[in-house]
């Protein structure tokens, strides 16, 4: 469904992404995992041309993304931002309605779709439709952001650390809910995160980026059992290392008590 073909992005001498090739199958969710500055957000933005590649190309359903004008391309791809980016001067309903409006849907169809989406992201339509983004909690904002990304029924959705700014409890709940939603709707997605657990929970496959290069790509089980290099191995070990810290802490506390 999505093919990244030898993508490069350079800013002068600085290389952000180097010779990156990946494929995402229809209905699959690929996680781009890596540390800060590894080039995962840059890669994501090159898919919908918020950033233009220096070299290489992206194909969606076999078509080079450069065949369309950038805004036409983006209307067909859902995009969910790390900072959410809801427009503060528009109501929740108007925020969700934006892409359908740009596509020229009828008002009646838009209204029905907004209510359907609010239901889908589990926000009561009558209570939330007319609210302003500033009147929502962080988790509610992120659900509205996701509803906006899904509004025009895109086949491809890009997500840039959508749960990164949330508290751990809300994040766990939303991850679980998102997993169910995705399997129900069946869209193809690329999901950027630096959180190993999130990658394991959500990803069909995980691509690990290091300094703009692809270190390894595979299912969570493959990466856990056969890491390609030391860095991937260390990354994969993070959850267990953190669990060990907790265990040790509990053990010493237990002795002292």
């Amino acid at each position, binding site marked *: 469904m999505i093919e990244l073909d030898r993508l490069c992005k350079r800013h002068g001498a600085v290389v952000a992404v180097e010779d990156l090739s990946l494929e995402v199958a229809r209905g699959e969710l690929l996680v781009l995992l890596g540390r800060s500055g590894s080039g995962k957000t840059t890669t994501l933005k090159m898919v919908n041309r*918020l950033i233009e590649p220096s070299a290489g190309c992206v194909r969606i359903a076999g078509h080079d993304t450069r065949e369309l004008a950038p*805004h036409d391309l983006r209307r067909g791809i859902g995009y969910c931002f790390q900072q959410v*980016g809801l*427009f503060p001067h528009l109501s929740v309903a108007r925020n969700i309605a934006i892409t359908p409006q740009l596509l020229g849907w009828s008002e009646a169809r838009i209204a029905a779709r907004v209510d359907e989406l609010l239901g889908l992201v589990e926000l009561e339509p009558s209570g939330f439709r007319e609210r302003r983004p500033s009147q929502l909690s962080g988790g509610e904002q992120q659900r509205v952001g996701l509803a906006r990304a899904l509004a025009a029924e895109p086949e491809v959705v890009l997500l840039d650390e959508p749960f990164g700014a949330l508290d751990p409890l809300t994040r766990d709940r939303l991850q679980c809910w998102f997993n169910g939603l995705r399997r129900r709707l069946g869209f193809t997605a690329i999901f950027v995160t630096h959180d190993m657990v999130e990658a394991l929970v959500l990803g069909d496959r995980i691509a690990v980026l290091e300094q703009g290069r692809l270190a390894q790509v595979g299912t969570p089980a493959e990466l856990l059992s056969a890491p390609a290099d030391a860095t991937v191995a260390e990354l994969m070990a993070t959850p267990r290392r953190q669990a060990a810290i907790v265990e040790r802490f509990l053990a010493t506390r237990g002795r002292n008590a």
Partner: protein
Amino acid sequence: MTEQLRLLPGYFTAHLQLTLAALLLAVAIAVPLGISVARRRMLATPLLGVTSVIQTIPGLALLAIMVPALAALGALTQRTFGFELRSIGFLPALIALTLYALLPILRNTLVGIAGVDPALIEAARGVGMTETEVLRRVTLPLAMPVIVAGLRTAAVWVVGTATLSTPVGATSLGNFIFSGLQTRNHVAVLVGCAAAAVLALLLDQAIQALEAGLRDGRRGLVAGALLFLTGLCFWAAASFDAPGSRLASRAVVIGAKTFTEQYVLSELLAARIANATGLPTRTLPSLGSTVAFDALRAGEIDVYVEYSGTVWATLMRRAQLPEDRSRVLAEVREFLHTEHAIEIAAALGFENSYALGMRADRARRLGIERISQLAPHAPQLEIGGDYEFFQRAEWTALQRLYGLTFRAERSMDSSLMYQAVEQGEVDVITAFSTDGRIAAQDIALLDDDRGAIPPYDALVLVGPRVASEQPQVLAALAGLAGTIDAAQMRRMNLAVDRDGRPPAEVAREFLQTLGAN
């Protein structure tokens, strides 16, 4: 008071028209300009610099500069496109005030756009907006409260500065203030200031409501404020009499400079023309000194009273006086006719000359009767003059012929000079010889024994259009030749300056006595 209130609707409407037109024009220029350069620092910074420099020019100076600038531009358009711009009145005031309003609107447009979170711009692109849609749906709505705040600042500035547009011939609430200050009519000054303050508050509150409504997303407030402001615009536009209609009615326009004698004489000439020819007349008071002459030449006004010495020294730039002083009038007449097609309809019969004056008791004590006797005392004395005197050729001639050097030269409003010399603030003043306060305050005029100051015969000048097309006006004014002597003029001036009577009433009374004889 009732006289002032009768004038209020006209002046208020004119002021509103000027203010709103300048603001709308400034918005139409500054907002698109701000949008187009907002993301280009290379252009935005110098543009802000230019508007800031305009802002530092004092309002009165900016307005005054527009007159010669437009006259020069008008000469150019006349040659290339065959139409002339009006360099006096609404247009120069409109341009100056628009320039004045640019800075706050432009600056706030730039600040407002820069203040929009870049993440929101990226989100807007991400959901599939074109650059135009990003601007229309996200950037501008979010920047709008800041832009409107700039409009609010501009509105208050323009209402205030518009009161200074009277000297360039644009009617405004400033007419109350300028004529009131000159004729010592404090009620008029207060009415003008109060009305301007009310207008400023009104606009400020309406725009503030618009700003608050936009910021908090209160649709009702935005709609209400917009309705009020649009209503105001429509009302101002509806009561605007287009230049064309004014031209069609062909009112004879009589100008006046900014001192009492000129107000009285302009009313006197207007009444005389109306009585003798039945033509409609209009007075355009409080014009700057050279503005009046430029206005006459350009046909913005048709008639005004000028003094032969002013033409001689300021317009003809002649420093030397001829042996025979009567040659001055003949040469002035020749100059006006051949250079500007302006005719002298009548010499009214009195001179209003610059004369050096001192308190009579002071002059007696120092033994000064003539200017030549003043020279040795001058280094210990201070002289007060009106705004233009120390720039004029007469002053140069006085200094040269008498070797006058004073301890200090102080410029002040001509209506305050007499008070200043009486209270000893200054020792010598450049009095006008017909001023009623000379006799009333016991001021001694010093004899110009070396002939430095040219004769200042009061002349009724008639502009080219009326001179060629309406000879009956010329004839009516010619009948006034020699009818006003210096004593009569002084009495009329005193009636206004000391007794606070309206100039029009004093002028009417004089014409009645003239008719009775």
